[in-house]
């Protein structure tokens, strides 16, 4: 398994574990009482699962499994794939930190949240740029 694929998959697994742990904490807080910011993080936890775990796992496996872009560069243009990994995780992390902080007190956390959204969008753009040429039929045999 390629290094970048391992990064994608392992990071996705980390997000899964953290999201499920937060979800458990939320459920417990809803049952026995807990800090308001935790209970208000419902959308955040859903995005940790949907973006950090599921979407990132898909991107990693696609990077691993999709057809070769060309014989010379089977994995295609790697820079957008690597950038997508960094942008997605930094963007999601900013959201996870900023969303509850915004609910608690506002301040500059609105800007952090907005930047987090932009970074995740850039990550999606990077992934599409990387994988689009690999959505193809089999390479033709050389004459």
């Amino acid at each position, binding site marked *: 398994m390629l290094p970048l694929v391992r990064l994608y998959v392992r990071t996705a697994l980390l997000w899964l574990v953290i999201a499920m742990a937060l979800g458990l904490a939320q459920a417990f807080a809803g049952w026995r009482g807990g800090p308001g910011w935790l209970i208000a993080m419902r959308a955040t936890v859903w995005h940790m699962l949907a973006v950090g775990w599921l979407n990132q796992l898909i991107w990693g496996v*696609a990077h691993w499994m999709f057809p070769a872009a060309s014989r010379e560069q089977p994995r295609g243009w790697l820079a957008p794939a690597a950038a997508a990994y960094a942008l997605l995780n930094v963007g999601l992390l900013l959201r996870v930190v900023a969303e509850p902080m915004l609910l608690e007190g506002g301040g500059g956390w609105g*800007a*952090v*949240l907005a930047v987090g959204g932009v970074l*995740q969008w850039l990550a999606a753009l990077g992934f599409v740029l990387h994988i689009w040429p690999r959505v193809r039929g089999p390479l033709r045999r050389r004459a």
Partner: protein
Amino acid sequence: MPALSIWVARSALLQLLLGFSLGALALWNKGFALVAWPWRLVPAHVELLLLGWMAQLAVAVGYWILPRRAGQRPRAWLAVVAALLLNAGVGAVVLGASFGWPGAVALGRALELGAVVAFAAHAWPRVRAAGGT
């Protein structure tokens, strides 16, 4: 990758970008409130990413990867129907949810149901052991 998988995967990738665009807009608006309408796009954001991106990519890859029978993909027409219905359904739900047309949402869900039934009917016989009949 067969031609149908290529087209369906490309459609999924475009819906990934569109879904993330709506999500980024909504998240920006949460940080810096611009206008009220981005919140109306959240259902469209969810539909595009769960159905338009993830489910559709699964259809594309499943059609490509699942075991074939003597090198053929039996009843491939069902997969074509599934792809068409899925995209039409997502489109109807996105428009209906964004503009407040519940009839369009219901129609979209019906089309999506047709899509998954068609794909399941196509894929079921291909879910078998290697070398199995």
